[in-house]
């Protein structure tokens, strides 16, 4: 399957941090409007650091790999550092993604940021944030005509 880099294949076949955290401090869940996929990220926070992180993903190879990569990138990082992790950084850490799959990396970073937002909202006494149905990125490059 030459469309994916070796790193993507590695994370797809051996995803890191799969699962759920039952007593998570923050949960970010996001659906993808482009292809209908869903990503869920759980974080455990201690002293403003992401002590543990887990994910569940319903999606393509790139979606699994980007979720896995994002959890690996933020584990042990401070919230501030984690908030700065961009979609591009996730894709880059995987040695790139095919253009048609860039939207999958949006999903991973956005789900992480939602989990942090959720944690902060709970901490501020405002309760959990609502589940977000879609990510808000532009999805370009789709042809008007359909192709098999």
């Amino acid at each position, binding site marked *: *399957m030459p469309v994916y880099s070796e790193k993507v294949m590695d994370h797809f076949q051996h995803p890191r941090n799969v699962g*759920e955290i039952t007593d998570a401090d923050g949960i970010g869940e996001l659906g993808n409007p*482009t292809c*209908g996929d869903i990503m869920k990220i759980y974080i455990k926070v201690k002293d403003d650091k992401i002590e543990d992180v887990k994910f569940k993903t319903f999606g393509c190879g790139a979606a*699994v790999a980007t979720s896995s990569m994002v959890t690996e990138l933020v584990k042990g990082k401070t919230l501030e550092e984690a908030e700065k992790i961009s979609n591009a950084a996730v894709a880059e850490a995987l040695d790139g993604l095919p253009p048609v799959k860039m939207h999958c990396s949006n999903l991973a970073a956005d789900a992480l940021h939602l989990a942090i937002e959720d944690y902060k909202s709970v901490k501020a006494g405002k309760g959990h944030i609502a589940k977000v149905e879609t990510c808000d990125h532009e999805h370009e490059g789709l042809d008007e005509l359909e192709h098999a």
Partner: protein
Amino acid sequence: MKTINFDHFAATKMRPEVKSAMEPFFIEEYGNAQSIHNLGDAPREALDKARVQAASLFNCASNEVIFTSSGSESNNLAIKGAAFARMAQGKHIIVSGIEHFSVLNAVKSLTKLGFEFTALPVDKDGFVNPDDVKNAMRKDTILVSITHASNEIGTIQNIKEISEIVHGFGSGAYMHTDANTSCGFIETDVKELGVDMLSAAPHRFYGPKGAGLFYLKKGTRIMPLIDGGVQEFGRRAGTENVAAIAGAGAACELAKNELNKRREYLLPIQKHIIDTVLSSIDEVYLNGSRTNRLPNNINFVIKYIEGESILMWLNNSGIMVASGSACTSKILKSSHVLTAIGVDAALAQGSLLISLGEDNTMEDARYFTEQLPPIVQKLREMSPLYEEAKSGK
């Protein structure tokens, strides 16, 4: 690791007989079939022979066979060729909603030139209701094009009955069927089907890529899409791809001789896969008709997981399959065929499309049915949808 091709709709391995039919025309007999001098003799004879072989498979006269470059070209020639030739009579075309994109996008393109089309719905098994054809017919209907068998769900349409309706209506509309998936595996007798035009793709039945077949009933008017010389009775200009056409002819002859054998060989393999997958994995569904189905097609949806991930894991086990999930499509939309038979978008994500061929064995089928359940389990454990569904219970 062994490679198991369960994606024969993408490519079949050429038969040695096909290859040897093609071989003389690359180097030794490189002449142009239109030449009057001696160099043209062998290529011309090869074209004649291939035409007879194709005509025998279609049960038509050999001058009713036109060679094109692909099944998609044949579909375009049928749709646009008939539309352009008959636009003075009307501008309405009827298709089904589960046609291949070479039909659907052709009629969509025609709307830019003022044509209109009706895309008929199908039922949950993918059947076009002949009554719907009857009700959609108009005085200005010039063409009806319904696929013989779906390339995704394998459902075989009742083309004979639909053809009778179309011709009985009296608007002079032509009936075309896209047999690009069915030809070579079930009967494609044009008299029996009652069609005016039929498209077929030899590379789907052990022939070469680069040649397509088009049946055009005598007296059916089409305008060529490629104007030029006199090749293909003036219906399709351009120097003939003699090698590919010779191979296509050989593939037609093999198909004609082996049709029953192929079905009898494939049916038990198909049955084993369907029965075993449905019984060993929960929340899996078969799409398409169970009975009126191509012997080489299987289409499942597996709930809570996504097709590309399944495909990649199977690829890892040496099994090549396709999927109709949005993530696997280049335009990130789930299969229009699954949508048309009422499979919702989330479910369509778990689509798995298997197309069998003569190189598959019962052993391959057993290997596949052993490999699949743990893959499904692994992906479900990773799926937030599965988690929700389980906790909801």
